[in-house]
C-alpha cells in the first residue's frame, strides 16, 4: 500500500521528465469521487473494483457541493457551499489549487475545451470564470440585473465554444456569457423567461436549454441552434387547478433525463415526473411517483429513469420503465438518499444514503445490491465519465 502511494505521488515527477514507460499504467476512466458533506472530505472511488481508494480533507463546507472534471478525468473541480473552488487530483489524491471565490456558491461548469472553469454564486450573485489549470480568475460576471442588484445564479451549464449559460433566480432571466475573448466577455440576455428559475439543464446534444420555474407551473426553453434564439414557455400550467404540495427540497435538473426523444422532468409541488416530447416540447405523460422528485436521471442507454425524492420520502428510489412509462420498481436503499450516479455505461448505479453513511452499488438489471461502501454522510457522487458530456 505504501509503495503504491509513493508511486502515485511520483507520477507527476515521472511525467515531467518524460519517462512515460516508467509510470504505472493508471487510467482515470473508472474513477470518481463521493462528497462527504458533513466532514468536508472527498472520497475517491473506483467503479470497477467498487472500492473507496482514499480520501482528501480540508475542502470546507461541502453541503450542496458539486464537481466537474477536466477532460483527462484526472482533476475534479469541487465547488463548495462556502464559495471555495478546489482542484483535486484523482491520481495523487491531493488538492492542487484552491481559491475562495465567493461567499456562497452553488456549483459550476467547465468549458467545452476544458480551459475554463466557471462557478455560479449566490453571494455575491454572479458567475466567476477561472483558468482550469491554475484557478487564476479570468472573468468576473456579476448578475447585476438592475443597478446595484445582484441575482442568485442557478442552472449554470457549458455551451459549445467557451460559452456558459445560466439563469437568474431573482431576475427571471437567462444569460449566455461568451468568453471567446476572455478579456471582453459578451453577455446575451433573455428577459421575462418565467418566474423564479431554480435550476436548468442542457440537452445531451447541446441544443436546448430548459430552466425549471419555481414561481409558476411551467419551464423555459431556448433552442440554442437558432441564429436568434428566443426563450419560450413550455408545459405552462401543468398543474393548473391543483393545490401544490410543499416542496421540502428543490429538484435538480442537471443530470438530465433525456431518453430517446422523451425528456423526464421533475414536477414541482406535485409528486409526478413530467414526460415531454423533445421534438414538439409538448407534455406526453405525467407519471405518479412516491414523493417530490429531486433527481430524475436516465440510465445512459435511456431504458430506465431513476428518481429520488425530497424529505420525508427520501428513503425511496423509483425506477421508471421508459417503454411503458410506469414505475417498474421501488427500492429502499437506505435513509436520506441524496444522489445517484450511473457507471459510464449504466450496468450499475451508485446511490448515497446520508443517514446510513453508505453508498450502495446496485445492478440496474437485476436490482441486486452489488456492494455497500462505508462513506461518511455521503451526498453527491461524480464519476469521471462526466468529463466527456455536455452539460455535466
Amino acid at each position, binding site marked *: 500500500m505504501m509503495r503504491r502511494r509513493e508511486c502515485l505521488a511520483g507520477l507527476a515527477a515521472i511525467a515531467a521528465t518524460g519517462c512515460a514507460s516508467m509510470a504505472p499504467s493508471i487510467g482515470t476512466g473508472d474513477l470518481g469521487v463521493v462528497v462527504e458533506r458533513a466532514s468536508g472530505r472527498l472520497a475517491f472511488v473506483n467503479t470497477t473494483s467498487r472500492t473507496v481508494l482514499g480520501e482528501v480533507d480540508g475542502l470546507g463546507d461541502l453541503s450542496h457541493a458539486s464537481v466537474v472534471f477536466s477532460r483527462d478525468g484526472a482533476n475534479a473541480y469541487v465547488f463548495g457551499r*462556502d464559495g471555495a473552488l478546489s482542484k483535486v487530483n484523482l491520481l495523487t489524491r491531493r488538492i492542487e489549487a484552491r481559491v475562495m471565490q465567493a461567499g456562497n456558491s452553488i456549483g459550476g461548469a467547465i468549458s467545452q475545451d476544458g480551459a475554463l472553469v466557471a462557478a455560479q454564486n449566490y453571494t455575491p450573485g454572479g458567475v466567476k470564470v477561472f483558468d482550469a489549470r491554475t484557478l487564476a480568475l479570468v472573468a468576473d460576471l456579476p448578475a447585476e440585473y438592475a443597478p446595484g442588484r445582484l441575482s442568485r445564479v442557478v442552472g449554470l451549464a457549458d455551451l459549445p465554444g467557451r460559452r456558459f449559460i445560466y439563469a437568474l433566480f431573482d431576475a427571471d432571466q437567462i444569460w449566455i456569457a461568451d468568453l471567446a475573448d476572455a478579456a471582453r466577455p459578451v453577455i446575451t440576455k433573455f428577459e421575462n423567461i418565467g418566474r423564479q428559475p431554480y435550476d436548468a439543464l442542457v440537452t445531451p446534444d447541446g441544443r436546448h436549454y430548459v430552466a425549471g420555474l419555481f*414561481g409558476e407551473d411551467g419551464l423555459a426553453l431556448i433552442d440554442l441552434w437558432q441564429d436568434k434564439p428566443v426563450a419560450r414557455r413550455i408545459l405552462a400550467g401543468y398543474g393548473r387547478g391543483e393545490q401544490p404540495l410543499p416542496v421540502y427540497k428543490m429538484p435538480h435538473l442537471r443530470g438530465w433525463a433525456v431518453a430517446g426523444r422523451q425528456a423526464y422532468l421533475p414536477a414541482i409541488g406535485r409528486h409526478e415526473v413530467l414526460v415531454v416530447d423533445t421534438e414538439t416540447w409538448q407534455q406526453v405523460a405525467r407519471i405518479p411517483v412516491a414523493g417530490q422528485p429531486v433527481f430524475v436521471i436516465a440510465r445512459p442507454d435511456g431504458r430506465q429513469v431513476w428518481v429520488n425524492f425530497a*424529505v420525508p420520502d427520501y428513503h425511496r428510489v423509483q425506477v421508471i420503465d421508459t417503454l411503458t412509462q410506469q414505475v417498474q420498481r421501488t427500492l429502499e436503499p437506505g435513509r436520506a438518499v441524496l444522489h445517484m450516479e450511473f457507471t459510464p455505461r449504466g450496468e450499475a448505479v451508485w446511490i448515497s444514503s446520508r443517514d446510513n453513511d453508505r453508498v450502495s452499488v446496485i445492478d440496474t438489471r437485476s436490482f441486486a445490491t452489488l456492494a455497500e461502501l462505508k462513506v461518511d454522510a455521503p451526498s453527491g457522487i461524480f464519476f469521471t465519465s462526466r468529463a466527456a458530456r455536455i452539460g455535466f
Partner: protein
Amino acid sequence: MKPQAAIRTLSATTLALGVALAGAQGVDPARQAELVRVVRQDCGSCHGMRLTGGLGPALTREAMADKPVDSTVATIFHGRPGTPMPGWRLMLSEVEARWIAERLIAGFPEEPRR
C-alpha cells in the same frame, strides 16, 4: 484538553442545556436530537448545513438576531408564500417549530459527532 475534545464537550454541554430548557415545553431529548438533525441536514439543503444561507437566507445567530420568535415560528410552520420556503406542519408540531425558532435565535446547536 485538545481543541476538538473541548468543542465536543462544549457541544454536549450545549445540547444538555437545550434539553434542560426545553423539558418544560414538551420536546423530549430524543426528538430534540432529531430536530437538530432535520434543521442542519434538511433545512440545510436550502439554508446551508452551517446555516450560512443558500437559496434560503442565512439562519445564523447574527442573521436571526432581530427576528421575532412568533413570526419565525409562523414561517417554519406555515411557510412563506411567494418564496420557496414551505410550511413544515406536515412534519413538525407547532411546539417543535417554536423549539427550533428559539434555538435559531439563540444560535443553533451543532449535531453531536456520530
